[in-house]
């Protein structure tokens, strides 16, 4: 009977969809399957592309192709003088999507905002553990449970966030994927039906595209949301064709089986550029790769030793060998596209002789060290072992004997965080929200020692500057503080900054309106296909 019901339902659905119709459809060859469709639960880019950037909106949004924040579901906001109260005026007449599985009866309002955040930060919230092992990693990682004192509904279209302490990056944080706004009405319906897990499987938001179907590891289908508050999209359908192998994605793009692909192999870029039907967009990524010394261990606790090692390595050959030139040498811990980047800083000059002398002066002879090379490829570091080998060769020229170590990725992540770690570790970071705090305090702040701060470096002067910048809501003042912090960083050299990589997106020439995003997200609102 169950089988018959399934068959009937399937037949009904098929007839509803009619026969094979090829409306204006954009096909995106995505790089991996989404882990789920609730962006609060996950951290992976492919999950955000498939959920938060298609189905959902946030109170504020990043400008398409940039990191500046613009109004989203909130049309305006005010910040109290003490920086503790953020009051958002919500957009009126915003409708949640109507789907086969839910028909909303009311418009978006303050209840949805409160629900979307409280479920992530309040452990006693009925939705806090709606799936086993819900870690709310981003909300937790951004410190929201400690930061947010309360979220109050002033009226249906006004909501107030009260913070426990001033936090200048708070607005930028709200543009991040985990801050997507869900429908409380839909959640209530799922709770009443005892189908809580459906929130993570059949998403429903206010975004430009309505979720239609997901076939695991194969295809995700969306259609344009006719009620979208910014107006219906120009394309009718959006399809994610999940294609994990980059070489196969490139072949699909060349064969016209998809219109856009992310993350091409560096070796394929020239071939894709040569294809007359394709355009290859490129943009510096909002990222950095670095070698973090363990500044708590001798002799790396000495600034002179760290600076000498930085001077011993010629970084350009690493860029050429690992990225085939598609990256630039990094001199600061934040990328050049980020506001407050201090361009006046000079990188440590490659000078093996001077480095050797400096080591001798520091009383370091016959130094033996370990370089940890990541076992995985990341946009900021495509081949850590190759980079480590080149560093090893350069270190040898100044009399430093380096041994290359690697661990399985999970073990690498865990062991590299330990304060008594033996060796310098290759690691990197891709920005979440375009705010310098997301690099400087997250990766180098004193509180991050034993965690994200893999240099185990706690410098009072630096920490004071970044903490002061975090509390100030004056952008000019923040810029000055971050510029000063970068000077301290360069002087103290807890890392050898390696590179900022360039990202590529090959796409069909028929596609218009697609922009690369420095945050690494892939958005399809505003995209069209020439007939």
């Amino acid at each position, binding site marked *: 009977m169950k089988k018959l019901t399934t068959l009937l339902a399937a037949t009904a659905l098929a007839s509803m969809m009619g026969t094979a119709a090829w409306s204006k459809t954009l096909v995106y060859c995505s790089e991996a399957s989404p882990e789920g469709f609730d962006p609060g639960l996950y951290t992976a880019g492919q999950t955000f592309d498939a959920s938060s950037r298609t189905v959902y909106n946030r109170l504020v949004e990043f400008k398409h192709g940039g990191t500046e924040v613009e109004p989203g579901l909130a049309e305006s906001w005010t910040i109290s003088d003490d920086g503790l109260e953020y009051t958002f005026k919500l957009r009126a007449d915003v409708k949640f999507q109507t789907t086969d599985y839910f028909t909303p009866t009311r418009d978006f309002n303050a209840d949805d905002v409160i629900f979307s955040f409280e479920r992530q930060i309040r452990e006693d919230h009925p939705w806090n*553990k709606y799936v086993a092992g819900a870690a709310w990693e981003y909300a937790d990682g951004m410190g929201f449970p400690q930061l947010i004192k309360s979220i109050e509904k002033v009226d249906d279209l006004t909501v107030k966030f009260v913070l426990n302490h001033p936090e200048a990056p708070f607005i930028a944080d709200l543009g991040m994927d985990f801050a997507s706004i869900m429908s409380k009405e839909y959640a209530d319906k799922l709770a009443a039906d005892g189908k809580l897990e459906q929130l993570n499987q059949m998403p429903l938001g206010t975004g430009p595209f309505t979720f239609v179907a997901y076939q*695991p590891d194969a295809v995700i289908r969306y259609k344009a949301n006719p009620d979208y508050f910014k107006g219906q999209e120009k394309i009718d359908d959006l399809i994610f064709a999940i294609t994990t192998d980059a070489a196969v994605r490139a072949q699909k793009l060349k064969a016209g089986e998809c219109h856009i692909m992310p993350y091409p192999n560096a070796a394929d870029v020239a071939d894709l550029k040569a294809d007359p039907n394709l355009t290859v967009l490129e943009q510096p990524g909002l990222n950095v790769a670095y070698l973090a010394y363990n500044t708590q261990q001798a002799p790396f606790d000495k600034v002179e030793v760290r600076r000498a090692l930085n001077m011993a390595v010629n970084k350009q050959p690493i860029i050429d060998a690992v990225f085939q030139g598609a990256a630039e040498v990094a001199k600061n811990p934040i990328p050049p596209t980020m506001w407050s980047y201090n361009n006046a800083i000079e990188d440590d000059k490659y000078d093996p002789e001077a480095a050797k002398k400096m080591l001798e002066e520091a009383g370091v002879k016959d130094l033996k060290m370990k370089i940890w090379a990541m076992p995985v490829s990341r946009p900021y570091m495509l081949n850590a072992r190759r980079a480590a080998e080149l560093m090893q060769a350069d270190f040898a020229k100044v009399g430093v004997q380096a041994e290359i170590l690697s661990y399985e990725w999970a073990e690498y992540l865990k062991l590299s965080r330990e304060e008594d770690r033996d060796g310098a570790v290759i690691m990197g970071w891709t920005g979440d929200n375009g705010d310098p705090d997301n690099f400087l305090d997250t990766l180098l702040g004193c509180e*991050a020692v034993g965690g994200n701060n893999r240099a185990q470096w706690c410098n009072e002067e630096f920490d004071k500057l970044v903490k002061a910048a975090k509390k100030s809501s004056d952008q000019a003042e923040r810029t000055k503080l971050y510029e000063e912090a970068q000077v301290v960083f360069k002087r103290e050299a807890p890392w050898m900054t390696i590179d900022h990589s360039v990202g590529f997106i090959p796409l069909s020439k028929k596609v218009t309106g697609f922009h690369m995003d420095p945050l690494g997200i892939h958005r399809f609102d505003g995209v069209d296909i020439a007939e």
Partner: protein
Amino acid sequence: MLRFLLGRLAVLVPTFLGVSLIAFSFIRLLPGDPVMLMSGERAMSPERHAQVMHDLGLDRPFYIQYFDYLGSILQGDLGTSIVTKRPVFDDFLSLFPATLELSLCAIILAICLGIPAGMLAAVKRGTWLDQSVMGVALVGYSMPIFWWGLLLIIFFSGYLGWTPVSGRISLMYFFPPVTGFMLIDSLLSGQEGAFRSALTYLILPTVVLATIPLAVIARQTRSAMLEVLGEDYVRTARAKGLSPFRVIGVHALRNAMIPVITTIGLQVGVLLAGAILTETIFSWPGIGKWMVDAVFKRDYAVVQGGLLLIAAIIMLVNLLVDLTYGLVNPRIRH
């Protein structure tokens, strides 16, 4: 025959228990844990990490976790994926038909080409034909699957444009799965051209997945046939004046088939292993890719549940192979 069948079934119980223990413990022997991997470069505080591990029940002693798991299996619950939060059995059911469809097509192709090729090589032993068939089989057997798949895509899809690059059916066709077998579902959908599209998408992955089993079957058929062709009863049949077709196709082949059937049965494991790479290259949504992803993400529930289900299938196929022996050779039944 019934006793034979019951005997075989009795062996399955301890095997199944052994597999469950191996599947459960091996994934836990790998360094790292799923919570650590999910947070990636973004470090989670040790307290938070411990709390999530507790929520998932992964902080309990190993044996308690194992016996809980066994209890759940007996109730038909294979658990929920730590990453996707979907029930493991549901995911398996939605993905397995894709692997099965591809594997069946591959094994059919391997049998249809491998047995005649092996017979031909045996009959024409020592000739250029024999050497060519065995040479090709050796190359096929040694072929790195990933490279072979990409080569076929670049040539047939990229250069000639004869076949699609990857996927199961053209994206213009959209119908909900009924059986999970795309060839059948495309027919059921009634959409014009859907079946043909599904068929074209099957060609390259089938060829890639069939390559190694085809080579193995051809080589096994040749050696088994050579052995049988030297037997007295074959000489007698020839002396009686039977046609060469009847001697080779009926008398010799039937006896040569026993080791070949064993080989075909063993290819199920090879197919499932090959499916991991084939599915990755051709974006084929099957269990091979699903399992590999789960290992990388330390999704314990998926790895242990998936391994258990795959082992159950292999055991079932081996049981069927044993039963087939009985049909082919009545002496085995007794």
